[in-house]
C-alpha cells in the first residue's frame, strides 16, 4: 500500500496540479498581455474568462490531429511526447519545501533535462518536413544550447556558495540572507538566460510569428501542439521556481512549512508575471544580436564571476559546510 502511495499517488499529485497551473497560466498571460495593451483579455467564456483554459483544452483535444504527408511519423509523434515528459519530470527535485525526490545532484539533473529538451525542438523541426519548421528549429537549437552554457557556469558559481548541488542546501544557505544580495549580477544574467532558454520574448525567434509563422511547430495541429504548448509553459514556471529557489528562497520554519510554500509560489508568480511583462514590453531580438549578447557579453562576465566566486571563498576561508 505504501509503495502504491509513493509510486503512483505522489507523482500524480505533482503532475496534475502542474498541468492545471499551466492551463491557468495561459489565461493569466492573455489577461495580463491584454491589460498591458489597454484591452481586456478573454472574459466571455466564464466569469472573468476563468473557464477559457478549459475551453481551450477541450478544443485542442477534439480537433483533428494532422500528420503531414511527407513528415517522418516516428519523430513527429515522439517530439511533443518527449517535451511533455521532460517538462513534467524536471519538477521532481524542486523543494517546495520538501521535494518529491531529494536528489543530491538536483541542479545537475535540472541542467541535464533542460539540455534534453533541445532534442524535442530539433526532432519536431526536422520531422515536419517544412522549410519554416526546420529553420525555426535550427535557430532554436543554437539559441537554447548557447544560453545553457551561461546557465551552467552561473549554476556552478552559486553552488560554490552553497556547498552542494542539492537544492535544499540553497534553502539552508539563504536563511541568514538571500543570495540575490550577494550575487545580483549573476541573478540578472540568470533571469535573462532563462528567458532565452524557454524561447520567450524577446528571444522568441523560433516562434517568430511575423517571420516564420510559428517556427518549429508550424505543422503541428491539435493534440501534439497542445503537448508542446503545455511543455513550454511548464518550463517557464519551472525556470521561475528555480530562480526563486536559487536567489530568493524564503526561510524555512519547520513549524509552518506551508508558509514556505506560500512565499515560494508568491515569488515564482511575481517572476512569471515579469516574464509576461517583458513579453508585452520589448521587441524581438535579431538573431545575431541574441548571439552577440551571449557570446560577447554574458560569457566573459560569467567566467570572470565564476573565478571570483571560487577564489573569494577560498581566500577568505568562507567555505560552505559539506552537508
Amino acid at each position, binding site marked *: 500500500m505504501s*509503495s502504491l502511495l509513493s*509510486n*503512483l499517488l505522489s*507523482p*500524480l499529485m505533482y*503532475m496534475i496540479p502542474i498541468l492545471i497551473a499551466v492551463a491557468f497560466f495561459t489565461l493569466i498571460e492573455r489577461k495580463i498581455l491584454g491589460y498591458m495593451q489597454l484591452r481586456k483579455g478573454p472574459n466571455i467564456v466564464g466569469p472573468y474568462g476563468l473557464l477559457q483554459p478549459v475551453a481551450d483544452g477541450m478544443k485542442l*483535444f*477534439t*480537433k*483533428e*490531429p*494532422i500528420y*503531414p504527408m*511527407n513528415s517522418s511519423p516516428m519523430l513527429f*509523434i515522439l517530439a511533443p*511526447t518527449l517535451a*511533455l*515528459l521532460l517538462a*513534467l*519530470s524536471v519538477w*521532481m527535485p524542486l523543494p517546495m519545501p520538501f521535494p*518529491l*525526490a531529494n536528489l543530491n545532484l538536483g541542479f545537475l539533473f535540472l541542467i541535464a533535462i533542460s539540455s534534453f529538451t533541445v532534442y524535442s525542438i530539433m526532432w519536431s523541426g526536422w520531422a*515536419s*518536413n*517544412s522549410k519554416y519548421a*526546420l*529553420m525555426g528549429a*535550427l*535557430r532554436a537549437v*543554437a539559441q537554447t*544550447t548557447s544560453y545553457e*552554457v551561461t546557465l*551552467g*557556469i552561473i549554476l*556552478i558559481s552559486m*553552488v*560554490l556558495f552553497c556547498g552542494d548541488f542539492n537544492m535544499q542546501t540553497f534553502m539552508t544557505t539563504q536563511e541568514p540572507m538571500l543570495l540575490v544580495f550577494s550575487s545580483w549580477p549573476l541573478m540578472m544574467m540568470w533571469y535573462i538566460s532563462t528567458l532565452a532558454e524557454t524561447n520567450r520574448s524577446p528571444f522568441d525567434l523560433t516562434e517568430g510569428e511575423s517571420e516564420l*509563422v510559428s517556427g518549429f511547430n508550424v*505543422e503541428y495541429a*491539435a*493534440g*501534439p501542439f*497542445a*503537448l508542446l504548448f503545455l511543455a513550454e509553459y511548464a518550463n517557464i514556471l519551472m525556470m521561475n521556481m528555480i530562480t526563486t529557489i536559487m536567489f530568493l528562497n524564503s526561510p524555512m520554519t519547520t513549524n509552518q512549512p506551508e508558509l514556505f510554500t506560500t512565499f515560494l509560489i508568491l515569488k515564482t508568480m511575481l517572476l512569471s508575471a515579469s516574464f509576461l511583462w517583458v513579453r508585452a514590453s520589448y521587441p524581438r531580438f535579431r*538573431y*545575431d544580436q541574441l*548571439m*552577440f549578447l551571449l*557570446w*560577447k557579453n554574458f*560569457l*566573459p562576465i560569467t*567566467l570572470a564571476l565564476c*573565478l571570483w566566486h*571560487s*577564489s573569494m571563498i*577560498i581566500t577568505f576561508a568562507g*567555505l*560552505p559546510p559539506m552537508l
Partner: protein
Amino acid sequence: MNTTTSLIILALIISITLIILNNQLTMTKPNNDKLSPYECGFDPLKTMRLPFSIRFFLSSNSISTIWLSIALLLPLPWAIQLMTPMHTLTWTITILLLLTFGFIYEWTQGGLEWAE
C-alpha cells in the same frame, strides 16, 4: 522501483495517453490540402531540406568545448573541501584560464562573427 523511475514512467504514460486520446476522440477526414506542408497556399516548389549553414556547426563546436571545461569544473563543490585549497585554486584557475584563452582566440579569429 523508486520514485524517480515511477514519476518518469507516469509522465510518459500521461503524454502517450493525451496523444492517443486526441487520435481516438476525433474523426479524421484527410484531404490533400490538409496534409500538404505549409507554404502560404502554394504548392511546394523545391525539396524541403535546407542547406546547413556552417555557422550553426561552428557555434556547436564552441559550445561543446566550453561544456567540456565546465564538466571539469563541476566537481568544484567537493574540490574546495579538500585539505589543500591552494591546489584546488591552482587547478581551477588553470581550467578557467584555458577556457578563457580558447575563447579569446576564437573571438579574435572571427569565430563569433554574426555567430548565428
